[in-house]
């Protein structure tokens, strides 16, 4: 456990060095945040009936989405790991006296944590001072905020477990693009990245709630704005933990199977 902890710490410090890259990311996220809010605001201004999510809740949803983008996108990947697998250099990794899954999980976790730490604060600060309708609001109660933080962290762990599945699939397919694209297209749509889940038609919401992706992004952001009340949020946290255990287990089983069949030639 100590080894993984120090991997996490070292990688975190390394990730925090790329400040200019983060600055460029912040600028992009601002732009996207404004564009999305403008689009939704235009839709809301002519809504015939009351939409299932108020504009205030939606604005918080979008700003959170933009500031924690590093936590919720499957698209961000570590090409180093893909290359290790396809070139066979993964053999060195397997020689290490620690678990392959845990080691890489810690590395990827640090990568995302440092990315979000650098990016989220400037975006959030500006999101709180821009004029209405773009201004983000505080959560309705301190308990909602605490639940949000918990849900966000669990969501991050869950997302990493899903992205580990993508890496493991490369052992079989040897080409990262296919599985990556598949996961990204399905995952991002059903995590509410394109349109928030409450705005989807009912049948699609059923599909989304049957999949793990909505727990990574949609759920924490709606807990923040109070769109999901506290008692329901507690159940949601349980569901997140359940999914996390299932997907980590699945990843470890798949990795074990893949490693047993792995053939590395040359020396």
């Amino acid at each position, binding site marked *: 456990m100590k080894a993984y902890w120090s991997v996490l710490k070292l990688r975190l410090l390394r990730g925090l060095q790329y400040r200019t890259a983060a600055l460029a990311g912040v600028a992009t996220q601002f732009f996207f945040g404004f564009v999305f809010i403008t689009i939704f605001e235009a839709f809301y201004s002519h809504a015939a009936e009351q939409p299932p999510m108020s504009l205030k809740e939606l604005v918080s949803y979008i700003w959170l989405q933009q500031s924690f983008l590093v936590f919720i996108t499957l698209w961000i990947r570590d090409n180093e790991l893909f290359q290790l697998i396809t070139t066979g250099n993964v053999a060195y990794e397997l020689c290490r006296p620690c678990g392959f899954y845990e080691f890489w999980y810690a590395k990827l976790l640090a990568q995302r944590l440092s990315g979000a730490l650098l990016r989220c604060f400037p975006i959030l600060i500006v999101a709180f001072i821009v004029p209405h309708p773009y201004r983000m609001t505080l959560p309705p109660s301190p308990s909602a905020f605490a639940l949000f933080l918990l849900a966000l962290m669990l969501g991050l762990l869950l997302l990493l477990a899903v992205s580990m599945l993508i890496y493991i699939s490369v052992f079989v397919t040897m080409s990262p693009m296919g599985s990556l694209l*598949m996961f990204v297209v399905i995952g991002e749509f059903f995590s509410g990245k394109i349109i928030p889940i409450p705005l989807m038609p009912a049948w699609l919401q059923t599909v989304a709630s049957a999949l793990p992706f909505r727990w990574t992004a949609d759920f924490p952001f709606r807990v923040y704005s109070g769109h999901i009340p506290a008692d329901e949020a507690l159940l949601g946290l349980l569901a997140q933990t359940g999914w996390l255990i299932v997907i980590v287990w699945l990843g470890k089983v798949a990795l074990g199977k893949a490693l047993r069949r792995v053939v590395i030639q040359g020396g």
Partner: protein
Amino acid sequence: MVLYFKYLLISLKSQMQYRASFWLLALAQFFIPFSVFAGLYFLFERFGQLKGWSFFEVALCFGIIHMAVSVSECFARGFDAFSTLVVPGDFDLLLVRPRGTVIQVLGSRFDFSRVGRLMQSVIVLGWSLSNLAVEWTAWKIAILLLMIASGALIFTGIFIWERRCPSGRLKVWNWSTCSRTAEKRWHNTR
């Protein structure tokens, strides 16, 4: 220009060597904008209209812009992937050849799997046009074609203007100064 088409042909032939992978990638390229378009559709289904714009009018814009992006991504991919030439030092190879660097970078990569994206935008465009009451005149057809063509040129211009640095940093540099300084630096090291 002859050289450009030669590059084009070679690239097409080499990508066609992996036929299955090519079509799968094209299929995936089809689905990426598809999910965005589905989102758009569901929003219109819920809200009906967007400040007086109907769904098919918006879909028309979506189709035109997407078509322009996919065309320029297919033919000007070399510039988009410019950093993969510079970072490992492969740009040196282009500098020693007795041809312009711009055309060589342009010809270094074509991404024909964007044909999937193009198909998607063609379908969206066709669908929206068949649902809009447009009186077709020669001028209107010309405008539509010009919109797509000039859109593609604008996106190509953006690709050339921005070049992505390895850490994802966006550096907005003028292509010509960028290339000139790179060439100068390269000559100085000799």
